[in-house]
């Protein structure tokens, strides 16, 4: 197990380094001049270049950049002058995290539930209903779900607030819009994996023991079927995270995603790249946690290191 954790940790660190370096290279290859839009005298321009460190050799810049990153300093926004990006993240991340956690919990639990219901009702209308919900879910991009829910339930039926983030009722639409795709994905995987497990010999063994159907499903089927769902928790986090970009824009939630999209639209390069580094590191860390979690759930991995 220790070996497994160390191995995953090494891969994560290398990945972070690759990401950070790619971002650094990209900053240098950006088309055009970050100061081109502003009318600057040569002196101010030189000052600004010195301020951002553009006058030094690349290797020095790279070292400084890495040093700043290690200290957790992501630099300044180009658009919001003198606004450290750390500050922006500090202000906006709680909103995004709130939305993200709600979404992950709602999506995985509902998805697993739907998948189990579908698998246990093989060939009945209930299964087809679950499959239908799932396939619609993976076919609707979240920006469309978000806009449609906002229009129908918010504007037309006035069941929920149309936008902003000021209390539970405000969270319902964005959470659901953001969950739908993930929920559908989880329920599909859960259904397939439940059906796979149903055909396994050990389920027959459990039946031959005379266990009640509930105990078979609960102790033997779900526990084994849930493993593939755990493996996609990493990609799920990534999907939800990119989903927050549009959902936060649609519902005017002051989270990081909104700043990211604003950064893209304003060509605020430092902001885009710094937020990318932040997102990247966050996701790689999340993937690492999922890998470890998986190791704990599956005894075949957990014990692989201790085998004599």
């Amino acid at each position, binding site marked *: 197990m220790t070996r497994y954790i160390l191995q995953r940790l090494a891969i994560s660190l290398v990945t972070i380094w690759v990401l950070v370096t790619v971002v650094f290279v990209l900053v240098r290859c950006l088309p055009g001049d970050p100061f081109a839009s502003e009318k600057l005298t040569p002196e101010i321009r030189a000052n600004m270049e010195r301020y951002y460190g553009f006058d030094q050799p690349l290797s020095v810049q790279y070292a400084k950049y890495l040093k700043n990153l290690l200290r957790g300093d992501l630099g300044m926004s180009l658009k919001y002058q003198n606004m450290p990006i750390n500050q922006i993240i500090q202000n906006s991340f709680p909103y995004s995290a709130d939305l993200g956690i709600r979404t992950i919990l709602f999506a995985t639990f509902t998805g697993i539930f739907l998948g189990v219901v579908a698998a246990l009702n093989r060939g009945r209308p209930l299964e087809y209903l679950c499959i239908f919900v799932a396939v619609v879910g993976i076919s609707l991009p979240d920006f469309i779900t978000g806009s449609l829910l906002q229009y129908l339930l918010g504007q037309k039926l006035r069941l929920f607030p149309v936008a902003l983030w000021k209390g539970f009722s405000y969270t319902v639409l964005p959470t659901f819009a953001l969950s739908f795709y993930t929920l559908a994905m989880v329920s599909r995987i859960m259904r397939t994996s439940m059906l796979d497990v149903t055909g*396994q010999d050990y389920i*027959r*063994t459990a039946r*031959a*023991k005379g266990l009640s159907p509930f105990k078979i499903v609960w102790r033997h089927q779900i*526990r084994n079927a849930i493993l593939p769902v755990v493996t996609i928790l990493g990609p799920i986090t990534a999907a939800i995270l990119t989903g927050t970009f549009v959902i936060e824009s649609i519902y005017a939630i002051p989270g990081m995603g909104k700043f990211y999209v604003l950064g893209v639209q304003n060509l605020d390069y430092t902001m885009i790249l710094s937020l990318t580094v932040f997102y990247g590191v966050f996701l790689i860390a999340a993937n690492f946690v999922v890998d470890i979690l998986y190791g704990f759930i599956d005894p075949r991995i957990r014990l692989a290191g201790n085998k004599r």
Partner: protein
Amino acid sequence: MKAMAPGNAPDRVPGSPPLLEVRDLRVNFATYGGTVQAVRGLSFSMEAGECLALVGESGCGKSVTAQSLLRLVPHPPATTTGSVRFDGRELLDLSEREMNRLRGAAFGMVFQDPMTSLNPTMPVGRQIEEALREHERLSRSAARERVLDMLRLVGMPEPERRYGQYPHECSGGMRQRVLIAMALVCGPRLIVADEPTTALDVTIQAQILDILKNLQSRLGTALLLITHDLGVVAHMAHRIAVVYAGRIVETAPVRELFARPSHPYTRRLLCSRPSLDGEAARGPLCAIKGTPPDLFAPPPGCGFAPRCDYAMALCGTTPPPALGVGTGHRSSCWLLHPQARERYGDLMRAPLERR
């Protein structure tokens, strides 16, 4: 392996019903290509403490028979008809809940592949304990003790350590011991062992058979052994039932069957294996020509007729009834009919010839 001569089948008190009586069992599977008739009217009975072997080649319906006794065949796609009486109770009429009370308690099952028949995410000890606690009200510690006793009984070294291990930490032989312990832990009256040694190494096979045989005679449990291996049968069973294309073609006590095989299929089967001392067959091995019938559209008469050297017109049209050949020895073949004997003589008495 210790040579274990099969003794005589335990005698039944006259008038009491047999432990297990299967009458005209039929199992059909609906597939999109049509209906597969896996079992086509199979009948046999077993006494308490007896070891009966169902022998046949793969696809002949013996595994399906084993599983349908415990009603483990999924419905749909399968439909089962006929009668399975266990201790006088009709199993096919029981509710699923009543059936669950019997599974694991009154009869245990040992499966073919110990590699896949254990839940990979649950310690093996707990998997046995689960069977015990489902049927008996026991404290955790009492159940644990019983499980450890059982593990010792099946010859598991270091049972305390094994108790907490996961299946992937155990070898195939160890896993099969776990499955046997699981089948026996509630003290069942019947064990159904579906090819218990097929997936194991030859050396381990002998050990597992020894364990099964020992426990069976010690605990007085009846054992229904499903196998394609006549060698296994010779050492284990009291009686043999030869299955072909979903039906029993011949039943006989072990020695009787090896000495006087009375169905063309059994005779060919014996020719196709190396001989043991005291058996009728001599000479090089031979294969049975042709393939088993298509169970989507089985032949109307005798299932073996298309491959039989002695097939008669009648064989192709009418399934033969079981005719008595000797004590406890019955064979389903038209050649045993008086009119056929009159015409061809007693073909079953001819020495087995290998061609």
